[in-house]
């Protein structure tokens, strides 16, 4: 069951843009799952490539934003590489944003 806090966490993540491209983390398909236990958010996150140069920035942005959300006391990020990210994970909005920016996806 999705709680109200879980819904707000997803909405908050959709406010965070990738540092290199004009698309948010949810539309980019980087979030593999969220679990909320009390005030703790456990988040499963991937990156578009193992050599991603923006991992620290993305994790920092996630922590900063989620900790600003009322009811969130801590954030635990688990990096996952399986299944690997592909452009198939883009939402239609994400695909549109990257196309508009000039990337072929």
């Amino acid at each position: 069951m999705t709680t109200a806090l879980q819904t707000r966490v997803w909405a908050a993540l959709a406010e965070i843009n990738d540092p290199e491209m004009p698309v948010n983390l949810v539309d980019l398909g980087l979030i593999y799952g969220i679990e909320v236990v009390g005030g703790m958010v456990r988040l499963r996150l991937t990156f578009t490539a193992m050599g991603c140069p923006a991992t620290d920035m993305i994790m920092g942005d996630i922590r900063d934003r989620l900790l600003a959300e009322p009811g969130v006391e801590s954030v635990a990020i688990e990096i996952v590489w399986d299944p690997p990210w592909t452009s198939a994970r883009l939402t239609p909005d994400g695909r549109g944003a990257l196309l508009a920016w000039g990337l072929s996806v």
Partner: protein
Amino acid sequence: MRAREGLSSPPAALGDVILESIRMESSNSVTFETLLKRGELIESRSEMTPDYLRELKHTLIVSGDTELISAPAYYLAARKAPSVNAFMTGIAIIQDELAHAHIAYHILEELGESQEALIFKRDPKAFRYPYAFDVPLESWTELVVANAMYDQAGFCLLGDIHDQCSYGPWKRGLVKVMAEENFHLRNGRNWSKRISQAGGAAREELQRAVDWMFPLTVEWFGLPDDLKQHSAQLEYRLKGLTNDQLRQQWLSTVVPFMESIGIRVPAHRDGDAYVLDYPFPCTFDAPAKRWDFKDPCTWDSVMARWRARGPRNAEMVALFQESFSKFQVRA
């Protein structure tokens, strides 16, 4: 009429007819002046006057050289990265800078210059990038301050060209450049903040880096407007803002940021403008990385320092030139 900037282009066939008629008129520099004044974009060499072409090339060479030289300058410092992740960010930034250089040199090639000659066959002293890059960046701290201040300068200069430039191919090529420069800026700011928060010796090192790099970036924007009577770049709308306007834009972002992380800078806000707290220009001891705020100097002596280039000029140019002839395949 031609498509004005910001509006969509006419259908292809109509566009061709219009371009053809423009070409026919192009020998007439009065038409060229009219196009410029109307705020329209110049799209090809055939539309340009020789003077415009010369100024455009000069502006592109400065831009390409600046992006290119930032790669060895940043690389020599990125080797001191404190983690693999940080190193990868540094390398990604260097790759961006090389791609940005490529945009400028590629356009120059379309305008009749040889990329190969420009990059691999020029004397190190003939490169036209800001003097700041000639002073060695020797630590991760100095690299991230460069990202926070030098890339901010690049952001102001290229942002202005992106907004205002009358040469269409360059203006459009800068869309991605601006997004990537923003990434460099973030790396600089995130790390500067982190180092300042660490306090102690780390923070002192950060303050020392800002102390010598801040005035170098202030002079990056060139002669003050009251000494620069004429600007062909402005006249041809290759850029839109004056040296002092760009310098003020830079100060208005860098000064508040550095103050917000507890780092001192020799400038303050006075009404709507930022004022420097030291004589501008003054003397700089490059090997010691030290400014003498008690020793004002003339712009002639600054120009002489720039022309002579600084300590790392030859070493950085050699980094990308030295293997070129060795591996050249001859037919």
